């Protein structure tokens, strides 16, 4: 029995256990500080669904050896283009959502391909460059949003302004089109967005299945040991590009899922910081810079979004002040920092075994 517990602790790692316990304690404390437990749980589950696919987008590149995808905004931009095009064509409901995805995927493939070519030239510094590729592309698109020929009245500035608005509401189009599929509503406070979670589960299944195909295993080989993979006949560069394309496509799909739940398309500098919660999510789930699994995605997203949702509301009620923004900054960046500085120790411990 003790052996099993110890194995679990070793596998899970102390950081995750501590955070998990902390989250649990927040849930327990909630009713005592007048925070509704069921609403909180709903809140966490909805956030989990919103971010899930974006965190999933980290997996292909990590497995392919390209590091953490700080350039996720590139995929997000593809998704934004898809979403905006779908609204332009006045598409609603589930069809609108699916069309947005369909529009976004080719763009994501194209962008991912170029991004992958760049990353192949800068092996060893992928993460830092990804960071700035992400930033530059968001800034570049900010110029484009002002110029692209979209005409829908719901999207462009009123009073004959030029260019798209900063925030576009999808309420009349495909708001909650996934969430509201097969919803489970218990009482007044608990709302389970079955459709979105189901979609996330399907995506996870697809990614998991992919990594068990020939290409998928080749990609993992290329990521964990490029020299050996090359010797075994794997085209490492091609695998890396495919991993980047996959990440970018997942990012595109992920943001559309996010938007349908959130209710708004955020253009201009909206996607600027979006890579960070995704990175924090996967690192918290136990992934390293070189290896990421489905379990990492699910556990990490849940823990991270749970902490982000619960800590501010509970602490705010305890000290009667609104510190949520500051707490969020400290918690999310603290977690990423912790993961960035821990990875070496974990790796060497594993090697020692």
């Amino acid at each position, binding site marked *: 029995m003790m052996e099993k517990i110890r194995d679990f602790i070793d596998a899970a790692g102390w950081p995750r256990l501590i955070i998990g316990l902390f989250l649990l304690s927040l849930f327990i404390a909630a009713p005592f500080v007048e925070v509704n437990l069921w609403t909180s749980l709903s809140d966490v589950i909805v956030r989990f669904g919103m971010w899930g696919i974006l965190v999933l987008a980290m997996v292909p590149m990590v497995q392919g050896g390209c590091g953490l995808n*700080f350039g996720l905004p590139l995929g997000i931009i593809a998704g934004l283009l898809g979403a905006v095009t779908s609204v332009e064509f006045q598409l609603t409901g589930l069809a609108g959502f699916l069309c947005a995805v369909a529009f976004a995927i080719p763009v994501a493939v194209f962008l991912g391909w170029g991004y992958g070519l*760049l990353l192949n*030239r*800068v*092996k*060893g*510094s992928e*993460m*830092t*460059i990804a*960071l*700035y*590729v992400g*930033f*530059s592309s968001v*800034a*570049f698109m*900010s*110029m484009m949003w*002002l*110029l692209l020929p979209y005409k829908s009245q719901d999207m462009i500035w009123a009073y004959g302004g*030029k260019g798209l608005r900063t925030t576009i509401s999808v309420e009349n189009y495909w708001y909650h089109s996934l969430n509201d599929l097969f919803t489970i509503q218990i009482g007044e406070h608990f709302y389970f967005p079955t459709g979105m979670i189901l979609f996330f589960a399907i995506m996870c299944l697809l990614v998991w299945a992919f990594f068990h195909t020939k290409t998928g295993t080749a990609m993992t080989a290329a990521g964990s040991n490029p020299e050996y993979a090359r010797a075994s006949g794997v085209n490492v560069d091609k695998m890396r590009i495919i991993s980047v394309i996959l990440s970018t496509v997942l990012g595109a799909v992920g943001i559309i899922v996010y938007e349908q739940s959130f209710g708004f398309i955020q253009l*201009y500098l909206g996607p600027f910081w979006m890579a*960070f919660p995704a990175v924090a999510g996967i690192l918290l789930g136990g992934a390293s*810079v070189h290896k990421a699994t489905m379990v990492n995605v699910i556990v990490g997203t849940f823990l991270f979004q749970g902490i982000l949702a619960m800590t501010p509301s509970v602490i705010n009620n305890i000290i009667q*002040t609104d*510190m949520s*923004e*500051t*707490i969020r*900054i*400290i918690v999310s*960046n*603290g977690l*990423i*920092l912790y993961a*960035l*500085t*821990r*990875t*070496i*120790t974990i790796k060497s411990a594993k090697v020692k075994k």
Partner: protein
Amino acid sequence: MMNNSLNQNSAVSRFFINNAVPLLFVVFSAIAIPLAGLSPEYLVQEMIIRLGRYSFLVLSLLIPVIAGMGLNFGIVLGAMAGQIGLIFITDWGIVGLPAFFLAIIISAPLAIFLGWMAGIALNHAKGREMVTSYILGFFINGVYQLVVLYGMGIVIPITYNKLVLPRGYGVRNAIDLKNILGCVDNLIPLEIAGIKIPVATFILVAILCIFIVWFRKTKLGQDMRAVGQDMEVAANAGINVERTRILSIVISTFLASIGQIIFLQNIGTMNTYNSHEQIGMFSIAALLVGGASVAKASIKNAFFGIVLFHLMFVVAPRAGKTLMGEAQIGEYFRVFASYAIIAIALALHAWRKNKEKERARMEFRTNAESPSKGA
């Protein structure tokens, strides 16, 4: 014979590749300046002001580069320390040059402490220093907010009412720094052809330059160079690698706190929660535009870069307005250019590093082959 022409070609192409970023900016400026339609006197004056404002901060980036820590986004920590010093001297009602120096003295322990912590964190993230220092900046910003927005006024006594928010605690968003406005800039007034020059500020910058040049020759400076080139070799030579790395960050953070105070005395207003945020990005972008790389940065890069980068900064919105009829495009272009520059500079550096590794590998292979071939 073939070797000569090959060498010539690679020398020219190497020049272009090594200096791609500054050249890009020179070309951009050549196109955009006439489009913007700003007078040369205005531009020269603006550049001189900005040189005075930013030089100290950009120069504080140099020492970590020597030590192989890459571009220290953690100078933001020093900026925050400097700002806390300024909050205190404003609270105590100190003005003028004494206030300037007192602020530096107060910030110093905080800056050194933060730099030391940053150094330890970066030692745990070898190979990922830049991303880590970037995130560290955000994290400490959160702690800074906790202290300044929630702690000051309650836990930390502030007596000067004008500093505090209406709700009774927490420092205001914008602090009027008329107490130190221009106290260094205008100390020794000089005007040439209608252009004001902040002599005293430049003297401070010159002192820093002399310090950096001297520092490189000291034992600590040489140690840092060794660590920067190869940590293992340095360790074998008996250098305490961890401590040297930490020291480079501590010095950088301390210099950044001074730099931020100089910056703010020029601007005259402190946005308590924003003034420091972009400092890291702007300073690093400027250094990179000046031709520096992750592994190599000089004083020339700093000055050259500040002028080029800020030229773009000032000119882009106006050029955008002239070209497209909307200044907003120019402003987004500004953001785009700043980040794209960093991306391109980093990519070029990484690409060059990989190319050299390949070349070394090729040489090793041909050298290994030729003995048998010769025989």
